[in-house]
């Protein structure tokens, strides 16, 4: 190979592993606090629990700079389109943690106002149980996600688009083309 002649230190490896390693160690969450869980999410970022240990202390206010959306709290019917829009604005690759039972299943609030599980709107990678999950649970969920990133495919993730049900009949006019494109993406698993 000719590598023997090089005099400096070097490492060899797959590009894939390098990319996964880099992605795993710099996951930037979006600040998407909704309810009680958001407070625990902030606690996790503060001094006592210190998310900076995992390269995650930078909560980005702009979704375009974030890789991870932590859906922290119950999602109301009014918030659902906003949440989806924030998700759409995030750059690939992106991940979602559904934090707490309200985000995961609707939890205690089985009623008209709350979306029964955020996975009806966006694909979820990790579900964190608890009401609210303590910072430790959130950190566990984040570590699980890190493991998932480390072992997953770098180009297309498994289950991409699963669980999303866009209703084309509810969309009219100009937006049809864009919606059609996203529908195709969903189907192209």
């Amino acid at each position: 190979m000719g590598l023997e002649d090089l005099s400096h230190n070097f490492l060899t490896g797959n590009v894939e592993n390098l990319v996964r390693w880099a992605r795993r160690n710099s996951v930037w969450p979006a600040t998407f606090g909704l309810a009680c869980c958001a407070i625990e999410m902030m606690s996790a970022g503060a001094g006592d629990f210190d998310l900076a240990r995992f390269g995650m202390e930078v909560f980005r206010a702009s979704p375009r700079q974030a890789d991870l959306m932590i859906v922290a709290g119950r999602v109301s019917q009014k918030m659902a389109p906003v949440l989806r829009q924030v998700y759409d604005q995030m750059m690939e690759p992106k991940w979602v943690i559904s934090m707490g039972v309200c985000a995961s299943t609707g939890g205690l609030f089985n009623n008209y106002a709350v979306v029964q599980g955020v996975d009806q709107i966006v694909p979820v990678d990790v579900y964190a149980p608890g009401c609210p999950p303590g910072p430790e649970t959130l950190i566990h969920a984040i570590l699980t996600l890190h493991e998932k990133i480390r072992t997953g495919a770098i180009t297309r993730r498994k289950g991409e688009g699963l669980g999303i049900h866009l209703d084309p009949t509810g969309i009219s006019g100009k937006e049809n083309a864009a919606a059609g494109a996203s529908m195709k993406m969903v189907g192209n698993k």
Partner: protein
Amino acid sequence: MQAEAEFSKETFEGPQEMTEREFTAPRELTVEEGAVLRLAEGVVVDAGDIDVEISEDETMIINMGPQHPSTHGVLRLMMELQGETVLRTKPVIGYLHTGMEKTAEGLSYIQGSTNVTRMDYLSPLHNELVFSLATEALLGVEIPERATWIRMLMSELNRISSHLMWMATNGMDLGSTSMMIFGFRDREMILSFFEKVTGLRMNHNYIRPGGVAADLPDGWEDDVLAIAQTIPGRLDEYNDMLTGQPIFKERTEGVGILTQEQALALSATGPVLRSTGVAWDLRKSMPYLAYDQVDFDVVVGSVGDTFDRYAVRLAELRESVRIVTQILDKMPSGPYRVLDKKITPPPRKRIDESMEALIHHFKLFTEGIKVPPGEVYVAIESPRGELGCYMVSDGSSKPYRMHIRGPSFVNLQSLPVMMRGGLVADAVAIISSVDPVMGEVDR
């Protein structure tokens, strides 16, 4: 339906957002211009008092939220700007509407506090307290003394943690990141005590109709004493760090002024009202629990600006520590919940021994407490203001209607008045000074 057609004349199922100046009906605009939507025409002043020339076609409506780092959750504000001056503001809320009032109608009184505790997630114990007080008022039961004092201890500690959290987020909004880290550090200390007592860091479901869920653990005095001794020193540090600091003063003094008349007219309560100089604290004015047996002062401001609201909260923290220290001395012994078989389940130990206790426990948790018919309004002082609970019972074991008067929900109405004529950069400081908790605004 003729009646329906009649309503549609009066209501407007259209957008909740702020409409542009040229599309706003003249009548609406007078009300909006005068008081930025929220003051009666008698108090209307025209836009002339703002020191800026308004050009009809150059004002701009900007949207802030619902996903915004400094709107304390999912608050959405629409602001009309002329240059950098805010002309009109309108809060658009409901992004966290959880339907808790509907859910409460399906839960029994025993289960109910699980539901309400998730409203104001920074002071969950106050929510439980107001729900329990309302239920007890309908039941007409007297709570044992120890339960009352435990409730007081917990709610004062909760007030401290809530205000510390406010100091933290307020610091973050104004760019003082160290304050945020410090605030969370101190809050953790109280939360670990809560975890010891209730088993949870937040959403405790600890205060229940009939008393509290469990007695205080052994050695609680030491923990509370440690908190009561640590916090005042820390407050001195924060005082040094923020109060005299020129940047902080510059950003808060004279910003977002609310007068006494405006605050009362807008039904504002809590620190927002007290910062204007009205000494209205329900703990003092309409004492509940045993607040008439402890010694504390009601802190008031003088100007009603953002700085005053900060100063009132800082001083209230010290008052709460004072109350906690007194509770340490005065905590009575005795049962921690009502010894009434109709309300309180038997202790766990008895269930193992006695069949009757088991049946009784089962019946209480499946059928629930039967509450006599009636309606009641109970209000307490939460860290954000008057937290009220209007409860209607029809004699069954579930509330027929439970309505919570959230202080943040009402206080939010004063935002447009505070913002009017201010700079858009001050908006964040003003929102933060009202301390809205969206869980309680939208319920």
